[in-house]
């Protein structure tokens, strides 16, 4: 039965995506940043973002964080709907999961005080919310274009920003990113790489330019879908390097970038 269940993933795009979202959500929980784990955090910091204003304006995150019973119920409900969608696909479950994950992201980053834009695990569910194959296809295509825009605009910002030719720019960021590890004497391979990079500013500048080139590769996707796998691989590679060198985890974006590998299957209307 288990083998039958696992083999059902091979040709099921929706199941593959949901499985990845489940893994990402599980990692959030294991890391200790689920609603219940956050506890009754007294301070939040949201920016100028209407999406956050809707949720915080309605006192939704504040209420969740205040009452453990609500927090725990929502942790289980989010995981539960994702698992239900995995075992018995239903657009309704996906819609619930999407809303719950969006609410979770807004709460998490509001209380964390910083938006890291790792929202992929939320947006990737949008195409699966639609019943008709045609609408699903349109949603997948739109999401794909948004991802391309997301990364290429990020590259554009770096090009137009004032740090591109500043030799101290990246080495300062590298130093900032790892300073707690040095203060706490939590040293290892990554701090060794980090200290090399801090002291070799030319190498860090090359890495910065390399990151711009990798992010810019998303532009190709606006003209052709033939290079999707390559773009997907480049962007995953970019995130993995960010994890090692910048201490910015790719968790949250992996399920989203995975769709670059799925388009041949999506086009065959397997979902």
């Amino acid at each position, binding site marked *: 039965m288990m083998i039958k269940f696992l083999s059902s993933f091979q040709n099921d795009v929706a199941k593959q995506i949901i499985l990845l979202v489940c893994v990402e959500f599980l*990692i*959030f929980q*294991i*890391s*200790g*940043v689920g609603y219940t*784990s*956050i*506890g*009754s*955090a*007294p*301070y*939040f*910091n949201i*920016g*100028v*973002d209407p*999406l*956050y*204003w809707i949720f*915080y*304006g*309605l*006192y939704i995150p504040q209420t969740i964080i205040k009452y453990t019973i609500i927090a725990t119920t929502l942790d289980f409900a989010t995981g539960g709907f994702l698992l239900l969608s995995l075992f018995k696909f239903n657009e309704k479950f996906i819609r619930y999961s999407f809303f719950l994950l969006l609410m979770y*992201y*807004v709460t998490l980053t509001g*209380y*964390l*005080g*910083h*938006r890291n*834009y790792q*929202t992929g695990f939320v947006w990737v569910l949008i195409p699966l919310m639609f019943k008709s194959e045609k609408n699903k296809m349109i949603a997948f295509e739109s999401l794909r274009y*948004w991802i391309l825009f*997301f990364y290429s*605009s*990020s590259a554009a*910002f770096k090009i*137009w*920003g*004032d*740090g591109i030719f500043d030799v*101290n*720019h990246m080495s*300062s960021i590298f*130093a900032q990113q*790892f*300073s*707690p*590890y*040095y*203060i*706490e004497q*939590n040293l290892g391979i990554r701090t060794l790489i980090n*200290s090399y990079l*801090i002291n070799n500013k030319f190498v860090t500048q090359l890495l910065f330019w390399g990151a711009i080139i990798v992010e810019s590769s998303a532009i190709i996707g606006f003209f052709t879908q033939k290079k999707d796998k390559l773009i997907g691989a480049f962007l995953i590679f970019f995130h993995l390097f960010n994890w090692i060198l910048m*201490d910015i*985890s790719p*968790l949250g974006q992996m399920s989203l970038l995975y769709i670059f590998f799925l388009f041949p299957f999506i086009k065959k209307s397997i979902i």
Partner: protein
Amino acid sequence: MVIFPYNSMYSSIQETEIACYYLKMNGQRVHYSKFMYWKKDFLEQSITKYAGYVIQNKNNYLNYYINEKVKNKNQHIIIQNALTPGKVDFKGWAKWFATFAGIKVNTHDNFELVKYNVQIKNSKLSILDSTILCSTKTKNDD
């Protein structure tokens, strides 16, 4: 905007010194780098943002933004109450932070919020100076 990736990576950082924030509980720093990514990030970012809020006399960016944009007094109060955390007292925040970092907190524990200015040179970190931003020992927390 949550769908638009703009952060500080694009503008040049001119400072040679780096600021790091730590909570000290009974004189001991509460460490966070050992945790898995999201929890480590949560602890690091939340203390940095809380320190910024303390430095700004318990205001965050949205306080200033709302003051600037919303002129109607009633609307101002409603929006400010919902979108900003209000005046969060240091002791309550410190207790939450230490508990979240896995430390057992007792009623008589003392807390300090400390800003460290550090410099990393030749693979070595040096703490240039440190400033106590908030303390439960002195009555500077209102």
